[in-house]
């Protein structure tokens, strides 16, 4: 039995199956990210004035990743438009760039994550706090490249790089009361940051896999059923734009505010 409305739209709704399907899926995605965004809001407004960490992330890297995603959004829509204009070669070029841009986004994100996992806060027995990147770890001592934290201050402004001079600091193990990196366990802000950005990155990877499949082996469909193939590109594009849309809000919320 042939499934109806796979390519041609239904007369009453004007939509083909996959289009309804992707929008229903995106609706569920809105609720998923919405729940996490509302968690962020409650944590943010629950923090006492001046207590929410600011400046932990490098804004320029975040801005770079925003530009990467925006550019990938235009290449996706131009790839679809190329198919609509019956130009398969141009589709290949645009969508190839989309895949490269998706990989660029993930690589940049992985550098950001690595930076956080090698960034430590070291509390000594006398409650002195040092903050910086781990350079050396031995059974007797650790060396971090960072600075002494003034009382009550976090790593504010570190992203700008110039406020506090950084030096190599050697600390004996016996002096250390607590040593913790800036992973999701470090504080509430980093917990919600890692949750939101990791979930988003998973979406980027998932979208890139689908786009990559349709760019590679899946593109054979163009020869046999070009309209259906164009619809598939439109559907994958809608998902990709949603991923871009989420980042449009994540960037100012996590990096700037």
């Amino acid at each position, binding site marked *: 039995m042939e499934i109806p409305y796979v390519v041609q739209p239904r007369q009453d*709704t*004007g*939509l083909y199956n996959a*289009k*309804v399907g992707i*929008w229903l899926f995106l*609706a569920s995605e*809105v*609720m998923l990210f*919405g*729940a996490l965004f*509302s968690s962020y*809001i*409650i*944590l943010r*407004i*629950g*923090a*006492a004035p001046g*207590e*929410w*960490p600011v400046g932990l992330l490098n*804004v320029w890297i975040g*801005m770079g990743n*925003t*530009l990467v995603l*925006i*550019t990938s*959004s*235009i290449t*996706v*829509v*131009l790839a679809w*438009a190329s198919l*609509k*204009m*019956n130009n398969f070669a141009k589709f290949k070029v645009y969508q190839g760039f989309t895949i490269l841009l998706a990989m660029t986004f993930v690589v940049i994100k992985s550098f950001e994550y690595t930076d956080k996992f090698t960034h430590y*806060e070291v*509390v000594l027995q006398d*409650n002195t*706090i040092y903050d910086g990147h781990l350079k050396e770890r031995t059974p007797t001592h650790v060396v971090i490249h960072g600075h002494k934290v003034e*009382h*009550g201050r*976090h790593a504010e402004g570190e992203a700008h790089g110039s406020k506090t001079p950084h030096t190599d600091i050697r600390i004996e193990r016996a002096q250390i009361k*607590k040593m913790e990196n800036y992973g999701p366990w*470090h*504080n*509430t*802000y980093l917990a919600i940051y890692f949750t939101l950005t990791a979930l988003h990155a998973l979406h980027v990877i998932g979208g890139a896999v689908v786009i990559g499949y349709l760019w590679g082996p899946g593109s054979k469909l163009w020869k046999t059923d070009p309209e259906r193939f164009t619809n598939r590109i439109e559907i994958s594009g809608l998902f990709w*734009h*949603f991923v*871009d*849309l989420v980042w*449009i*809000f994540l*960037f*100012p*919320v996590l990096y*700037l*505010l």
Partner: protein
Amino acid sequence: MSDHHAHDAHDFQHHVRRYLFVFWALIVGTIITVGAWYVKLDSMALTVAIALLIASVKAFLVAGYFMHLISEKKMIYGILAATAFFFAGMMYLIVWGRDQVPQGTIHLGSRDTFQTPGSPSKAAH
């Protein structure tokens, strides 16, 4: 058939110009957002308002033009209206219940910077 394709191609050339305009608008929006943060406005509320306003405009451009919501079918608008209703409900419930956050859920940094009991944080109630 070839006439049909030629007409489509002409139509889409027009669309492509619009997509490129939206792309540049998104780039400019991003630069303004970061610019407003960089100049460090006196009012935090103004910084937040500018950042979220620009993000909303960018979201409208992406959803409206790249996702074609500006000229979509009624059924899609119906799905989105239901989504907006439930999303707004969820946000309302969470913000409404913000005074009910159990004590100790707000952990910020090292213990030296912990809130002391009786400080003005709503989360502490």
